């Protein structure tokens, strides 16, 4: 997977943390840093350092979402794949195995009981996470996590994933705005995000499906991000209608029904309908399959945390769009969604009622256009091919 940066490409900070771990392998670490600073990447490199030094060490990796588990698994070298389980915190708590090392990604999303349990097992802990990306209720506060596990904090200060413009766009939604803006930047793709307005939901949907499917078909790792499961269902029903497909497989979820089964059924329906899009999250869908089959990943803001894609679409940013995060401000959730693109990010909205968050964005870091203009461009003239 492209996200796993090889050892020779790690920056000096990242190398410093690995050296620090090697010097004191019995210390518990917390690797913190802004979105795109390479925390998960470093976690995998520390796993390799552990295995190099202690080949028989029992190591487990814990991650909050299935999509992130999928991504982390893809980064583990083949020789360790079977010996290093990657699991959800729930599964970890059910399992009483004693681990020498537990590597925890998105540590800020976990609850008290996880840390109490982890502490009682006596495992060494290497944690990664950023409090600016805390999007769940009733999670363990930062100070308590540090107290429970006696963690040494190491901060990554270089943002590799985001372009400067994407950072400027996301900054108003970051709790630590000044720190985020002052972080050093890598030398990646410097593309301005695009803000597209549509005159109606239908027009926006038409533009979105054409562009997103086009990117996926050409081999770009593409994702459409929506705030909630309700939005996912609404979008899929409308997409089916637009594409002339029966949407009966996008039914409402039964109470108590397992989400993985529910979304697998939807993905099955999408496949049968010939639509190049699959839901990713809650155990359904796969990053690997989406890359090989050239399909668009449809994912909630929550499930997208910890992941990145070459191209992301954040559509339907209208007034009624609810950013569901309980007591956590919607800004944090939006911040997570805004920081998932490695190359190009598209935001779109209905021009008659834009979401208030769009008013907080510095327009100088965006390219603005309308869905109608964009569609005309692709059909109007041969030179628009370029």
């Amino acid at each position, binding site marked *: 997977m492209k996200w796993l940066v090889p050892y*020779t490409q790690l920056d000096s900070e990242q190398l*410093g943390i690995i050296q620090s771990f090697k010097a004191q392998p019995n210390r518990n670490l917390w690797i913190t840093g802004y979105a795109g600073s390479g925390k998960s990447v470093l976690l995998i490199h520390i796993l390799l350092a552990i295995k190099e030094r202690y080949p028989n060490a029992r190591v487990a990796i814990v991650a909050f979402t299935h999509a992130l588990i999928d991504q982390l698994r893809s980064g583990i070298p083949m020789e360790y794949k079977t010996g290093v389980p990657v699991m959800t915190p729930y599964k970890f708590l059910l399992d009483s195995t004693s681990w020498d090392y537990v590597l925890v990604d998105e540590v800020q999303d976990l609850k008290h009981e996880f840390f109490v349990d982890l502490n009682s097992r006596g495992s060494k802990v290497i944690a990664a996470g950023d409090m600016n990306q805390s999007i769940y209720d009733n999670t363990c506060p930062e100070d308590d996590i540090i107290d429970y596990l006696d963690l040494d904090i190491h901060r990554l200060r270089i943002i590799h994933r985001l372009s400067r413009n994407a950072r400027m766009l996301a900054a108003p939604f970051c709790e630590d705005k000044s720190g985020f803006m002052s972080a050093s930047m890598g030398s990646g793709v*410097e593309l301005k995000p695009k803000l597209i307005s549509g005159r109606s939901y239908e027009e926006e949907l038409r533009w979105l499906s054409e562009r997103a499917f086009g990117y996926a078909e*050409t081999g770009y790792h593409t994702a459409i991000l929506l705030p909630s499961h309700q939005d996912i269902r609404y979008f899929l029903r409308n997409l089916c209608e637009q594409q002339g497909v029966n949407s009966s497989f996008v039914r409402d979820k039964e109470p108590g029904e397992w989400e993985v089964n529910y979304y697998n059924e939807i993905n099955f329906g999408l496949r049968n309908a010939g639509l190049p899009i699959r839901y990713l999250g809650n155990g359904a869908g796969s990053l690997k399959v989406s890359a090989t089959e050239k399909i668009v990943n449809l994912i909630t803001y929550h499930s997208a945390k910890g992941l990145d894609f070459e*191209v992301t679409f954040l559509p339907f940013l209208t007034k009624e769009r609810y950013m569901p995060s309980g007591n956590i401000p919607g800004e944090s959730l939006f911040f997570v969604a805004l920081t998932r693109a490695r190359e190009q990010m598209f935001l779109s909205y209905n021009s008659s009622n834009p979401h208030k968050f769009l008013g907080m964005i510095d327009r100088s870091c965006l390219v603005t256009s309308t869905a109608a203009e964009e569609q005309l461009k692709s059909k109007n*003239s041969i030179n628009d091919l370029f």
Partner: protein
Amino acid sequence: MNKMYYLPLHIINFSTQYRMGCISAPSKFIMNELNAAACPAESISYFSGLFKEESDVIFIGFSLFASDKKTGYTTIFSEDVLTVHPLGIIAAQMMPQLIDRDLISEPVEKNLREKLISFRNKELAGRGSGFLMRLFGIEDTTFLDGLGKIWVRSLEKYMTDQNFVPATLADYLMTYERTRNFNKNAVGILEDTASLIKQLYGLPDGYHPAPLMGTETLFPENSEISPEKPIGSDEGENHHDWVYLRLKQIAEVRKELLDSKEISFISVLERVNSNRVFTEFNEDLRAMESEPERWFQVIMIYLQLRSKIREGIQADNAVRFWFFIKDILMIMPKETITALYLAGQRFGINEFVPLFLFMNHPPKLKPIEFPPAELPLEHTEYRPARNYWNDSSKTYKLREGASTEYYKQKKQSPRKSKEK
């Protein structure tokens, strides 16, 4: 208050020496004042190496030191270090926990910071292109002299502001990014180049040829491309029409390439070399003062290199990168050298670390792909696809045993032998 003296140091260098009780430095590099005029660039290079992040370099302030006239060295005891000055407020915030925070004082003045950053940028860029030239045994780069100055100007603009409005071809090369879902193979690079050319010539989206349209200014202000030569071979044809019609022809080449499935970079490049439309663009772009003549191809090679460098040159793909460049060097030496120079400058030396080993240890040839056993034996002798031997001072040896004789002795096909 005692007079203060200053010395630039890399933060790791300082941290290491500080813990050992003293910092040692040649006396001639001690600065009397903390400003740009008092700081020769070579002292930065000498003491801080070449830093990557701004937080890597500090200036230490002290009032007591002991100089040894015989050795020309000065010793500053750790307890006499009074202040540590970062390059800026942001650098101070980013500074790793290697320094006692109480030592950190106000940042250096703006002029000094800018002098150092500018020095760093130029030095890293120069080392990047210089290394690539040495790596591929390229000695004659005099034809790049004129281009070098133009490129450095664009690079400086880009380093300060990634959103600067491009005006010259060099600017467009610096700022161009793919904004469409172009193909992810070599045809995508052709599409990128056409897109860059379209932007350079200022052809608006959705433009249609209109024979009666008035003449418009083709070249952006301050363009490096000479506006003296009118674009378009047919009289009465306006500039936009001229570009439009040629882009249309490129679109046809693109389609043919995609249909033919011959989409390796070399095959796309060869197709470009043999097509008249690209020659016409090159004739127009040749108004650049320096060589080479085929700028369309230079842009393509540069964008391809940029893409590969951005993906990361790693231990497992460095050999392929090396051979890729050797291949295109064979076909288009001047264009490739130019693109290498631009890419080396653009990314700086840090991106090429995995290639350092290749300077004195050229990569071994890849495991040989043997032909089927039924072919006559003379066909089983390994020959590389292209002749790497004659184009460089370096020679590359065949893998031991990879010869006809070896397999004659084995009396069986190498493939069968391998399968066993």
